[in-house]
């Protein structure tokens, strides 16, 4: 069985099998503008080890771009690579700053799954996004109603979440019962076998589509949008300025005019009161974060009852930012690490002290968000480490 079922499992994996990785990181606060107390920033834009990203202001606007641990210029924190069929967890973490006026602050480690680049900041109508599903796994049908999945490209079949909306493509003929260009919803059986339901409700109920006639012909591919947390369960999003040139003047309301939640329901919208963007928002800053009226934490609020985002279908600002660009990141928060005092390292034992052992999926792209407890000087250095183990 993958994962840790006991401390015996853990000590065996860590010592006998040497299934662990230590990542030492140091990241600087973004270089453009002093961070504002009460505001959130993403440290991906800051220099250090790993260096500043050169990813999140590239690519075609409004098209979802997945992010992996090895994405060129992504510069996420390396966690030891793919380990499937094992499960990887974070077991310890630390962070420290010797820079005056950084502490107190709070760091949040996130796995960024992908992003939408937004370059039209004077368009005040809803901007439709492009969400093209990508080849996620190849599938074969050896047993009635059951599909066996195998990793393909940079995606890992083990990462497929229950109830994910998927479509199939094929180089030949799909097994009878399945069709191309049709939504199906995953009924996860094991890490390498699934059935599919014809609707989200059927998948939750375990009612599988009948696949009646063998394997079909050719190679069959299961396609998803997200590379990890594929159903959107627990997936959050944040808007952040991603260009060395700050956004222009303007304080627009920020909203997702249409998103699909983790129950695969589209047409969801950001609830009122809408987050208010920051005028001249600087590189790295989460545009609506802060403490004033209309300001929020790092993540875009979800509609009542929603607990995750499967995809964003429309992005809207109510008034213009006169120039610049921003990015909408889809992410999952993994770990919170408060730095309370200048010079005092924050240390977290995630097995005994705060038992959580956050899982890190193969391909995860890890970045830090920071909540500024003070006005954080540009290039403020933060140092720390992450211990990972897998079994």
């Amino acid at each position, binding site marked *: 069985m993958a994962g840790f079922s006991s*401390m*015996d499992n*853990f*000590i*065996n994996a*860590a*010592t*006998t*099998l*040497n299934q*662990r*990785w*230590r*990542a*030492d990181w*140091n990241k*600087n*606060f973004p*270089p453009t503008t002093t961070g504002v107390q009460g505001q959130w920033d993403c440290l991906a834009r800051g*220099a*250090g*080890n*790993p*260096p500043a990203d*050169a990813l999140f202001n590239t690519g075609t606007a409004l098209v979802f771009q997945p992010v992996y641990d*090895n994405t*060129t*210029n*992504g*510069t996420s924190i*390396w966690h030891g690579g793919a380990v499937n069929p094992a499960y990887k967890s974070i*077991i*310890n973490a*630390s962070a*420290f700053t*010797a*820079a*005056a006026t950084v502490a107190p602050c709070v760091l949040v480690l996130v796995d960024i799954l992908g992003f939408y680049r937004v370059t039209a900041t004077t368009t005040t109508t809803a901007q439709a996004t492009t969400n093209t599903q990508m080849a996620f796994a190849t599938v074969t049908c050896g047993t009635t109603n059951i599909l066996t999945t195998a990793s393909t490209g940079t995606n890992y079949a083990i990462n497929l979440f229950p109830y994910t909306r998927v479509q199939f493509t094929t180089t030949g003929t799909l097994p009878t019962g399945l069709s191309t260009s049709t939504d199906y919803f995953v009924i996860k059986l094991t890490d390498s076998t699934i059935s599919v339901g014809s609707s989200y409700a059927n998948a939750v109920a375990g009612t599988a589509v009948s696949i009646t006639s063998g394997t079909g012909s050719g190679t069959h591919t299961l396609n998803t949008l997200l590379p990890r947390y594929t159903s959107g369960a627990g997936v959050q999003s944040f808007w952040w300025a991603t260009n060395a040139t700050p956004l222009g003047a303007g304080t627009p309301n920020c909203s997702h005019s249409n998103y699909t939640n983790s129950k695969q329901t589209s047409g969801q919208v950001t609830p009122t009161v809408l987050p208010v963007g920051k005028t001249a928002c600087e590189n790295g800053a989460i545009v609506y974060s802060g403490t004033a009226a209309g300001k929020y934490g790092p993540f875009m609020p979800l509609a009542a009852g929603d607990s995750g985002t499967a995809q964003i279908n429309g992005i809207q600002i109510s008034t213009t930012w006169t120039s610049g660009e921003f990015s909408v990141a889809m992410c999952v928060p993994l770990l919170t690490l408060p730095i309370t*005092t*200048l*010079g*005092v*390292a924050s*240390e977290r*034992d995630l*097995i*005994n*002290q705060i038992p959580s052992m956050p899982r890190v999926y193969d391909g995860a792209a890890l970045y830090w968000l920071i909540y500024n407890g003070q006005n954080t*000087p*540009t*290039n*403020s*250095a*933060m*140092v720390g*480490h992450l*211990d990972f*183990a897998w079994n």
Partner: protein
Amino acid sequence: MAGFTKIKDYVDTSVLNGAERYYSWKKSPNQATTQGIWFDLSMSPGNPIPKYWFDATPLTAMNVAQSTDGGLMHGSNVTPSNKYLKELMAMCVTAAPLPMPMILCDYLLYYPTIDDSVSGAQTMINNNVLTRYTSGAGVQMIAISEATRTGGQSFTVNYTNSSGTTNRNTPNILETGLAVTGSLISSAQTSTYAAGPFLPLQAGDTGVRSVQSVTMNGPDVGLFAIVLVKPLAQFNIRGIDAPVEVDYLKDFPVIPQITDDAFLSFLCCPQGSLSGVLILGTIKTLFN
């Protein structure tokens, strides 16, 4: 089979088999360090005795090992068993440098005496290669000041990464102006190109196998060494009233492995001067 398959193995090793070693250490740096600049304790007097990073031919790779260079005593080689860090205690009775995070590293290979005043690439001679963590996986670079310096210039390092890819380059790294031997010259609190204790690597790299050259972006005054290290464990001395005690199974469960002949020493980040400060502690290892 080397290692521990279950907690009972671990306990038996310690309690019944006697495969446990306990050593003390003491370091007495006499440098007037400043707040927030990382410092290497290897060259400081005490027990173990200092290891100087300028004691070999300039720019020529030299291996570091317990058997030849000392470092924190952790016991003799144990192959075919594996050795692990079980516990660590550290204390400091002077308030000036505290609170102070520290990182225990295995020092692997060093390139002595890189001259800040030389313009153009200074090419390293790699007659020696890593003998521990031989691929370079997880191996980091630290740049240690060997002499007083002016600081303020930046430099880059050309290296081979842990995948064996050559011609990799760090970004520009700013030299701190702290004129103290033993300080990590990359260390700065808030400045463009500021870095922590470890030199930033090229995007996508996670470890270093060897260094090919160092290029100063402008002339400076000073000398430094680049040392390849494998970080193993970290802890934090918070105040003069309480030693820090870490059990690496129970407190921060990672049980770092200490390879045969490892040279162990500490990096620290004081909040004030380390001059005349006594830092001491113990280390407990066990092997199975």
